[in-house]
């Protein structure tokens, strides 16, 4: 399982890039959900988001998940690419499949990659 060390992680499996403000879901999360077929971003550009509040909804063939903001701030950009091609979340969760970009994001209660790896491993089955 890939967990880039430059990112911060939420217990609910979102990643946050403090450098760019981008937000997405982790490799672990996409593997648990399996084949993702639908993404809906629930916030618009310019809207304020609060850490812990839902920002997107993801549906796979077998499951559905709510995605929460790992940081608070103003939504600078919404990634239309991932809405059009939800399978990007399976193929490139930390790259092309970012969901929103938060301006001046203040991170919530997040973990570093080592802590997240440990946490997610304990939940794997």
């Amino acid at each position, binding site marked *: 399982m890939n967990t880039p060390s430059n990112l911060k992680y939420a217990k609910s499996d979102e990643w946050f890039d403090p450098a760019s403000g981008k937000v997405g879901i982790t490799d672990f999360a996409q593997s648990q959900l399996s084949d993702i*077929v*639908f993404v*809906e971003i*629930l916030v618009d550009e310019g809207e304020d988001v609060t850490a812990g509040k839902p920002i997107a*909804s993801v*549906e*796979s*063939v*077998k*499951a*559905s998940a*709510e995605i929460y903001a790992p940081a608070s701030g103003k939504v600078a950009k919404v990634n239309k690419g991932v809405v059009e091609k939800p399978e990007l979340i399976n193929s490139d969760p930390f790259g092309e499949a970012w969901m929103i970009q938060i301006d001046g994001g203040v991170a919530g209660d997040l973990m570093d990659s080592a802590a997240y790896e440990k946490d997610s491993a304990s939940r794997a089955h």
Partner: protein
Amino acid sequence: MTFIPTSPAETEAMLETVGVKSLDDLFDAVPKKHRFPKLNLPPALTEMEAAAHLSDMASSNENVRQDLVSFLGAGAYNHYVPSVVDHMLRRGEFYTAYTPYQPEISQGTLQAVFEFQSLMANLTGMDVSNASHYDGATATAEAVSLAYAQYRGKRKRIVMSPALHPQYRDVIDTYTQGMGVETVGDEETNLTLSPESLTSYIDENTMIVIVQYPDFLGRIFDYKKIIDEAHAKGALVCVVANPTALLMLKTPGDMGADIVVGEAQPFGIPIWYGGPYLGFFTTKKSYVHKMAGRLVGETMDVRGQRSYVLTLTAREQHIKRERATSNICTNQGLLALAASVYMSVLGKEGLSEVANLCYQKAHYAAKELSKLKGFKLFSSEPFFHEFTLQCPKPASEVNQYLLDHGILGGYDLGNDYPELKNHLLVAVTEMNSKEEIDALVEVLKEM
């Protein structure tokens, strides 16, 4: 013990395997003071007795095939059902199967539903259809849920035509009680206004506009202008359509509708005192993820055979739970099959003949009735197989008089529109002969 196959000896052996002494010992977890209540119900009937009893009950009704001549429609229509339809429905392989969760052994139901979806999309001129809803009214309410979900609850206004079926409006009111939305447009009492007057209610807060086609009073309007106006404000438009009329009329898809729903009972389903019927729901592909209800999609099995599965199931309640658009679980599977067989066995030509007969006979009836003194058509708008007839006295009295002569006259519009208390909504289908229509005219002439 009517349908229980287990013998007393087998019962004993099974109890022993379970490790209890008697059947009653299986229920120790049930609070003792409420255990094994004495039910005050009539004693069991044998099959022969039950058949006779039910037959008596059924015969005490006056039905529209043997006892009464009917011109009653208003959302439920008396049509001919080809014999093939019920023969197919009576196949236990169809009616004793469950929702096709295991596609390897449910391809019959799955392909039949896929074909139903295809037939309805072709009929309405839309991209996709779901596997069906409880009835036309709840399908319309689900259109509201789609719009509500599409705008994530941010748009709160429903614009509804006053000429939408009154019971459908009631159901929408009930369904939306927890949504915090407002409904406007349907309180208009001047029913002679053109439907375009509805556009004044459409604003940036409007999630959906709902119109009926033909409308409840039977009138046919082209809704393109309203649809364009709604789209300009970002609202969706739902057209509630009669499927028999769609066999002849321009499709709502052609007018640009976002959602087309309706009651498919006219397609092979008996009037059955109001149910079960068949709500259909078709929409544009872009709304498919917000559409409630089961959906069948084409795929392939591991052996390379074309096959069908329930798809996009993660939208539904059993996975999405409280975040689902709707709680709907069942569809009207068997009746969707009825509609499919009906459409298939009549086919393009047979269906056109049905539509044309309805149209011709209704227009003959309208022409003859409006010649009568004191009677005239409420509207000069085009109509299909149902029209509003203005009578010289209250519709309730006219109906009573007709009933005394063995005729179900039509729907008393005064029930829902006090200003139309002298108006009857008259439906004529291929089931009504010229003789019956002439009899109706004759009886009213004497009234």
